[in-house]
């Protein structure tokens, strides 16, 4: 991303008509004839037009994420996981009024508020649907901050959860649940994808991508799984980063609106993190002080970073406490709730 930013700003050309341009890509071109011409000149334009601006790259990333998920953790505790995930989305909602206070309209506000969901592909998808003129800075802000969750959330956990609570060992269920095999997980993926796509047709490409990844993982198609979780995921992430870097022209970064987006982005992530911990505390008190509220931070759906952060912080206090299964369940629920919220925003606001 950094090397892309450096190259785009260094490689500026002055055209005969006095305008500035480059040989990387032009995100503002939309006329078909002009687009066909420019795709033969700018080397990254085909990737931008055919993968980025239609959300295909987001779907590829989602497919890769799906191929890494184990839905059995979600199937084990659906209610607590989804409950936490809703609290982990608090930033996605509360940032909207704040953004409107800063002078954005509701579509722009909803697009930047999606950063609170901590899900890059969702932010890309929402901003493309609701605020196409701002999708470059919003996506850049989102991806910049998603890297910060790994560094910032541990401090939030230490600040809000005292050591003796952080070290609570999760209680084993009194009655052992029946094990879930791959066939069941595959059937689950098909059923839930169908239902969610029916409920939110606008977000159905994302649901399909996620659950296709899950289905491939569970069907045991090793070659396909290796392709999706390897070259496809890492290739898409690489191209995404490179394109985002190339889109960061100086004129864009110096726009005062981007500064507002930077503030709103970090506010959204912070509120979501606090929201997740509040959800954790609610379950902690509801369970008679037996639930570890640190799991709440994993409801912020940055798969699997936040779950790992939660486990790491708990292990520092109590190495015997193993919260990762619950944290991964909340993490996966976070992905599903972010997709639900994307569907709600695009349906109600577009």
């Amino acid at each position, binding site marked *: 991303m950094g090397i892309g930013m450096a190259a785009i700003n260094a490689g500026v050309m002055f055209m005969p008509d006095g305008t500035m341009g480059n040989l990387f890509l032009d995100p503002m071109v939309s006329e078909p004839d002009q687009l066909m011409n420019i795709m033969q000149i700018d080397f990254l334009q085909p990737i931008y037009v055919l993968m980025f601006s239609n959300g295909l790259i987001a779907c590829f990333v989602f497919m890769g994420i799906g191929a890494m998920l184990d839905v059995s953790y979600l199937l084990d505790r659906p209610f607590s996981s989804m409950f936490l995930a809703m609290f982990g989305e608090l930033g996605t*909602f509360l940032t909207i009024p704040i953004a409107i206070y800063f002078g954005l309209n509701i579509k722009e*506000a909803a697009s930047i508020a999606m950063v609170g969901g901590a899900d890059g592909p969702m932010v890309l998808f929402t901003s493309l649907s609701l605020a196409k003129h701002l999708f470059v800075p919003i996506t850049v802000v989102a991806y910049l901050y998603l890297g910060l969750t790994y560094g910032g959330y541990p401090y939030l956990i230490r600040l809000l959860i005292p050591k003796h609570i952080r070290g609570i060992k999760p209680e084993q269920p009194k009655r052992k649940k029946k094990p879930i095999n791959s066939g069941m997980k595959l059937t689950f993926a098909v059923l839930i994808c169908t239902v*969610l796509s029916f409920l939110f047709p606008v977000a159905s490409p994302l649901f399909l991508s996620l659950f296709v990844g899950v289905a491939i993982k569970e069907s045991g198609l090793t070659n396909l799984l290796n392709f999706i979780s390897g070259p496809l995921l890492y290739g898409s992430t690489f191209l995404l980063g490179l394109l985002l870097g190339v889109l960061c022209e100086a004129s864009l970064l110096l726009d005062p609106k981007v500064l507002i987006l930077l503030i709103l982005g970090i506010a959204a992530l912070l509120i979501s993190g606090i929201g997740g911990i509040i959800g954790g505390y609610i379950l902690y008190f509801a369970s008679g002080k037996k639930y570890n509220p640190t799991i709440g931070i994993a409801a912020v759906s940055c798969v699997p970073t936040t779950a790992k952060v939660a486990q790491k912080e708990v292990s520092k206090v109590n190495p015997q406490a193993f919260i990762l299964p619950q944290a991964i369940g909340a993490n996966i629920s976070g992905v599903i709730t972010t997709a639900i919220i994307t569907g709600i925003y695009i349906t109600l606001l577009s």
Partner: protein
Amino acid sequence: MGDVFVKTMIMFVLAFIISMFVALLINWIRRLLTSVRMNSFFDERSKRLVKRAISIHKIHHQQLNLISEAIEEKEHSELFDFFEGVNDDFEPSEDFHGSLKLLPRRKRNTRKHKNIQPKSK
């Protein structure tokens, strides 16, 4: 500003309701998938048992119904190992009076399973 806040809260409540509905759905799907009957689609061992049950069903329709009811009422909890599916150590057998009873599986049918002899009085 107030309108936006109200609108946001409405969207939050809507998202919360839908998420809880999805959680309910996930729970329902899990229960459906792990039920004994559905389990036979995924588990080879259960599949074999269901096949056998169907063949017995043809011969002893009435008796099997009684056993099914007994299973459902959990009177014969030994029939099922609730963590691993159906217990293969038992089989329905006819006694001298012609009524069907659950007895430990006979040796001829169970090469893999240990032969459990009925307790001598």
